[in-house]
């Protein structure tokens, strides 16, 4: 929280994060999205907000109840985040968030 002198106003602190979608998710939502979010934002609402910019992209990642499809894979700075933990995982300044469908290399 930043407080500004005599007006006695405040501004919520923002952090910059990068969101990377891959494969079909990338086609629908783009990738390497740099965005400012309020400090303390959790993983799930961040992805929800970004995904809602394209209904088809949102439906590819979330079910009708707003939960991640069970096949969606989440990473934070290259480390796997379980879907069950996404709602309580906070993003911090400089984080790289990745969201992608099941892998199919080889």
């Amino acid at each position, binding site marked *: 929280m930043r407080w500004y002198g005599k007006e006695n106003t405040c501004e919520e602190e923002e952090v910059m994060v990068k969101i*990377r979608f*891959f*494969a*079909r998710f*990338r086609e629908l939502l783009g990738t390497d999205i740099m965005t400012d979010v309020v400090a303390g934002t959790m993983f799930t609402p961040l992805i929800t907000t970004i995904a809602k910019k394209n209904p088809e992209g949102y439906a590819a990642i979330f079910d009708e109840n707003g939960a991640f499809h*069970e*096949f969606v*894979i989440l*990473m934070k700075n*290259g480390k*796997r985040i379980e879907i069950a933990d996404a709602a309580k995982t906070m993003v911090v300044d400089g984080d790289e968030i*990745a969201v*992608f*469908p*099941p*892998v*199919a*290399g*080889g």
Partner: protein
Amino acid sequence: MIAIQTDDVDIGALIAAAKKHGTGAVVVFDGIVRDDDISEMELEAYEDVATQELEKIARNATEQFGLLHVDIIHRIGRLGVGENILIIIVAAGHRKEAYTGSRFIIEAIKAGVPIWKKEMTKDGGRWVPGEHGHGKPETS
């Protein structure tokens, strides 16, 4: 050599370089673009993470099967039918370790390395579904 790259590789040169002292067997896996009524294939990777995963898989295979040499080269970009996608070179003292190590590596790649394939057809394209629903990264 562990790499994710657009360029093809000289498999013969890799085999020659893999023949370290004590090598009794070299196994080569060459995954290629199959002619499934497609025009070409487009491959995409989360490169930093995928490279780290390949390095971890190579280390694990080396330790588990006593391998003498491992190369893994996964290509990305647009590839035509018949082109190499994935080259795995494994050298070991005996054939059993070489075959088993090579199989371990390809299965680990399919299970958890963030790479995707899109088959391009005359009607557009279709993403190849993964064999492992959760794409769980290979663990050390």
